[in-house]
């Protein structure tokens, strides 16, 4: 009996020696911040020393009311929902299609496609954010293509307007038409557009502009004067500014769902599929009755990961837009960060937001449990 007690005590000591290091760090990083957050969210703490500095105390639940009354919070919340929708209705189906194509060997070199499509996941989110910011900017490849199109278009119109090279005379209507092509920004370059532009064109003419090759220098000169530079309107228009962000999220994470789906497809017993094929099942039937049902758990799992991922995502939008223009691309995490660190910090408010996000996460965990009960057993 005494020996048993001794063993028990040794066992207990070993248990805590192994569990405590992990548990204490976990408490420090996850549990304690939640408590701190709860305390500060109902306080009037405003930065500075927490102990021994300016006194602070209970200030009521006003910060929560402020958050829920703030249209910027709801905008951020809406954007989080967009991220979830893009994941669930964009990444998941695309990832599924890729996985299916690879799994059913519709293409050769399965490893190659899988490897390449996963690459964006490996790159630092900051790199991805800054890279796409540049790609969508007027100086990116899209900008160059668009500018070339504008140029080409403008020159074509000029050539038709000027007519055959031999019969060239500068008429008022021609100049007026060119000004129309140039648009308001182009016309604004001249004090008195008509005469000034006319004399400019004549000077091109006398400089050998109308030679055997047509109006080369004249067309080039006018193009350089007038063609507008492409500006990515969708980054400046508030109602569509989320689109590039959502596109990049799709670009970045679809490969992850490909990996998840493929790994789970490979767990399916291939004999079931083969015997179904021998019994005359068509490809569509194999997909409908064998592959899809055995992946329902993965689909639910992925959707939950997508929601929790959207709540925690921060760096991509922080790097790509910083939440702008005029705060339209903020998601909850950036909304929280800006309240804490931009301008006059409002830590009470930021902590209220943190706690609201934690509450959403807990709701999510309960939803998971509920879904697991419905789809029970189908997972893994």
């Amino acid at each position: 009996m005494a020996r048993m007690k001794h063993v028990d005590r040794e066992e207990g000591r070993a248990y805590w020696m192994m569990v405590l290091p992990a548990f204490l760090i976990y408490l420090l990083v996850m549990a304690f911040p939640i408590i701190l957050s709860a305390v500060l969210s109902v306080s009037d703490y405003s930065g500075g020393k927490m102990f021994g500095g300016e006194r602070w105390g209970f200030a009521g639940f006003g910060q929560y009311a402020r958050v829920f009354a703030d249209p910027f919070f709801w905008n951020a919340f809406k954007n989080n929902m967009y991220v979830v929708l893009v994941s669930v209705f964009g990444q998941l189906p695309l990832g599924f299609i890729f996985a299916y194509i690879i799994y059913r060997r519709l293409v050769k070199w399965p490893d190659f496609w899988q490897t390449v499509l996963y690459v964006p996941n490996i790159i630092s989110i900051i790199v991805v954010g800054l890279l796409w910011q540049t790609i969508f900017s007027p100086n990116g490849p899209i900008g160059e293509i668009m500018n070339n199109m504008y140029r080409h278009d403008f020159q074509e119109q000029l050539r038709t307007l000027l007519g055959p090279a031999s019969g060239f005379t500068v008429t008022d209507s021609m100049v007026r038409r060119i000004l129309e092509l140039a648009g308001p920004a182009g016309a604004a370059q001249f004090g008195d557009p008509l005469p000034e532009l006319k004399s400019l064109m004549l000077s091109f003419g006398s400089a050998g502009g109308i030679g055997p090759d047509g109006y080369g220098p004249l067309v080039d000169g006018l193009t350089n004067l007038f063609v507008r530079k492409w500006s990515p309107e969708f980054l400046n228009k508030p109602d569509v500014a989320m689109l590039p962000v959502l596109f990049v999220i799709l670009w970045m994470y679809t490969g992850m769902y490909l990996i998840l789906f493929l790994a789970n497809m490979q767990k399916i017993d291939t004999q079931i599929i083969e015997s179904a094929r021998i019994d005359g099942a068509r490809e569509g039937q194999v997909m409908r009755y064998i592959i899809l049902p055995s992946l329902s758990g993965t689909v639910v799992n992925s959707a939950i990961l997508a929601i929790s991922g959207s709540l925690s995502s921060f760096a991509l939008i922080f790097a790509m837009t910083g939440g702008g223009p005029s705060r339209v691309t903020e998601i909850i995490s950036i909304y929280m960060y800006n309240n804490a660190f931009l301008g006059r910090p409002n830590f009470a408010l930021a902590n209220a937001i943190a706690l609201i996000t934690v509450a959403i996460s807990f709701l999510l965990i309960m939803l998971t449990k509920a879904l697991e009960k419905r789809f029970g057993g189908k997972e893994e």
Partner: protein
Amino acid sequence: MSEELKSGILARTGAALAKTLAYAIMIVFTVMTLYPIVWLIINSFKTTQEFQVSQLGFPKEPTLQNYTLAWEFGDFSKLFPNSLIYTIGATAGIILLSLLAGFAFAKIKSRATKPIYASFVIGILLTVNTLMIPLFLEMTVLGLYDTRLAVLLVYIGAGLPTGVYLATEFIKGIPSALVESARIDGAGFLRIFWKIILPMAAPVATTLAILNITGIWNEFALINILVSKTELKSLPLGIFKFSGSLSTDYGKQFAALTIGMAPMLIFYMVFRKQITKGVAAGAVKG
């Protein structure tokens, strides 16, 4: 033509059509995936002046000047070692602590297991990013703001929920008889851990290493609020310096982005099999 032959031909054209479509889909998306990355690398060898004239196409006179400038401006010779310390330190910590706790949860009976293990599992969906503001305040109060220790603690704490979950589930699969017979031979638990559990848990340790190495090397949101001194910053923080006021010096920015991308791309090329396997195994939600 017999009916059978006809349906055979139909099936074959159908299959050929499906294959063509499959290739088309894969090629389009592969190009879309790789093009921005290739574009970035190509343009990192152009001067900013050349880039402003031509964003498409290859550099006329490839230059490494962007790289030397970016390396110096970004203080990358300081940030690289930091990133290594954080990544290796935190990953090793997560693996060791997860396996220790997992061993205790899986093989030692205790009434404490249920609530503590459950709290770890809840943490899988409770992402630490949500808590960045209170974490910042907590570390400031503890006097740990702007220390390596804070970064390591936060990274380890963030990795533990998934780590403990995977380790516990894996160690449950190791036969208890192995542990019991070692106990009868008089071995202590720590000895059993080193001699039996640790070697047998290599697969789950690999999964955890893969998940955490890529995650921590690229991590930005948390370290962004934990340190401000250049001496303590990691690579992603250094790269972020190239946005904003410097975003018009494209050559330098592209070189910095390529420098930031390269280590993980190489790591991926070497370990891609293990990485894709690890990702599939680690995508748990408790």
